[in-house]
């Protein structure tokens, strides 16, 4: 039952890619995701995979190569971070609108400038409206598990959308931790053979990819993308159920940590959720009913489901590891409160922008948020706040 190992988050994703053995990987190295194509190209050289590895000259070319190969009918994967994703910008929209189920490992890092190589979620948040499915991972295990599930979700005929698996740069990508790997043959069987219904190299059924799409059609095509994104929710859960049967590890749209009787709830994503769990445990030992809601699936956004899970809380804090710089609130906060509004939920809810550019977030920082929640008035003044910022807040 599983293989006990210790791997960094990057090693975990590279291992998953080795087990998936995609037809094509096209990538350009960028910190902190560099190790993923580096390890993977070693697997290629050693003959451990039979993937065609395309060493391109930029991220724009990496995503272009992914689009070309996925259109041709090849299962295709890539990895990048921050400015690498920025350089892909034009092509990520093309990938999703062409309905190409490319899988990307996005090792989250602050988008410059000024230059910063450390973790926040500004890269992923920038791509939140690009039509990619976005899964977030607390640790190396979840980055691995999400990658194993990714192709199945993206390639499903009701979905056909590209998907990015996010994890925190350095914090999990470069931390060695325990992990349970799945046997190669089981992964192979789970992921299955890629048999696209339509592809360019199908000479029996010639097709065009990416032609002109003006007033008469683009709107309908975008609406179809939106339907596919809604469909993804169900598919994500079905794949998770099958994954649980194989591994015993349960995944949903989000994780509810001690939520049943929680009065004060923190909503967050990626590695901070683990730190928040430790903070909640400490507070519960002192009688504070603290809970954590960890968002795994950010796109499609499970607003209704999250609102229902929060309905018994007295106060909620949403932690955003990227500032939308919009004078209103972070992206996760805005999505959560709009989900709550639709469910007629009027629980006091505040937003903290935190961890920008790799600013460390400790158990004590999280405890200070719970402490703010205990004192929160019914209509909080200034719900758009900072956590861990020096000087005046």
């Amino acid at each position: 039952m599983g293989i006990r190992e210790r791997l960094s988050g990057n090693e975990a994703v590279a291992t998953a890619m080795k087990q998936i053995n995609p037809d094509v990987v096209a990538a350009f190295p960028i910190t902190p995701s560099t190790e993923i194509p580096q390890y993977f190209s070693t697997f290629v050289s050693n003959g451990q995979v039979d993937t065609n590895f395309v060493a391109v000259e930029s991220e724009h070319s990496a995503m272009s190569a992914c689009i070309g190969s996925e259109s041709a009918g090849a299962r295709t994967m890539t990895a990048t971070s921050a400015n690498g994703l920025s350089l892909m910008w034009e092509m990520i929209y093309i990938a999703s609108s062409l309905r190409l189920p490319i899988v990307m490992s996005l090792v989250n890092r602050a988008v410059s400038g000024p230059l910063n190589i450390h973790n926040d979620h500004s890269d992923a948040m920038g791509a939140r409206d690009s039509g990619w499915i976005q899964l977030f991972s607390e640790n190396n295990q979840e980055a691995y598990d999400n990658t194993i599930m990714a192709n199945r979700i993206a390639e499903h005929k009701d979905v056909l959308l590209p998907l990015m698996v996010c994890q925190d740069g350095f914090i999990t990508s470069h931390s060695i931790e325990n992990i349970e790997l799945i046997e190669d043959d089981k992964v192979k069987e789970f992921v299955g053979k890629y048999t696209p219904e339509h592809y360019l190299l199908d000479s029996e059924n010639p097709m065009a990819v990416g032609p002109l799409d003006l007033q008469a059609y683009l709107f309908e095509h975008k609406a179809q993308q939106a339907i596919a994104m809604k469909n993804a929710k169900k598919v994500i859960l079905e794949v998770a159920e099958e994954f649980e049967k194989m591994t015993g590890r349960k995944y949903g749209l989000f994780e509810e940590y001690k939520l049943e009787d929680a009065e004060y709830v923190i909503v967050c994503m990626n590695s901070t959720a683990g730190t928040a769990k430790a903070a909640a445990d400490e507070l519960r030992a002192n009688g504070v009913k603290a809970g954590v809601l960890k968002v795994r699936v950010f796109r499609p956004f499970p607003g209704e489901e999250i609102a229902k899970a929060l309905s018994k809380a007295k106060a909620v804090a949403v932690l955003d590891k990227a500032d939308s710089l919009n004078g209103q609130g972070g992206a996760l906060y805005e999505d959560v409160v709009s989900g709550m509004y639709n469910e007629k939920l009027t629980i006091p809810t505040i937003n903290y922008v935190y961890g920008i550019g790799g600013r460390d977030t400790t158990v004590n920082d999280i405890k200070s948020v719970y402490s703010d929640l205990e004192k929160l008035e019914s209509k909080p003044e200034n719900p758009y706040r900072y956590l861990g910022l020096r000087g005046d807040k």
Partner: protein
Amino acid sequence: MDNLIEIRWHGRGGQGAKTASLLLADAAFNTGKYIQGFPEYGPERMGAPITAYNRISNTPITIHSNIYEPDYVVVVDDTLLESVNVAAGLKETGAIVINTTKDNEYLKNVLKDYKGEIYKIDARKISIEALGKYFPNTPMLAAIVKVSKIMTEEEFLNDMIGSFKHKFAKKPEVIDGNMKALQMALEQVEKVN
């Protein structure tokens, strides 16, 4: 997580403090523990002060932050003693282990605000004698295992021979020297106060 042990490493870029933290994580993993081993990446350059961390526990570890109140601190380069507050937040029930040839009075004085145990070891001498080169991380690894009692010396040595055989598969001639460095370090680590 009452059993959680947190360790902070201080070194200079190029001395292998990061590698040592990963080797310690490996060794503890092999004795059945839950582990974390991670460096704090700054502007990486040879000779710049760097920090690396370990968490070791009998139960799963969910915290993902740096370590501010460690149980143990390892100082791989004693020139850091006067420029970095290496004992910051260090628990007085824990200990600090320093690679140094400085005398005990100097060490007690430079760490006079720290009330816990101070240990020292001459990792340079051990490394030169056992390996013919200066790789302080191997002796420092043994020293912290000895001081922290994370595992028994026997478990540690049995595990490390396996790791070295794997790591140095293409250079088997250095395995004996590395094992000798570990053994010497286990014997020579010395309590200062």
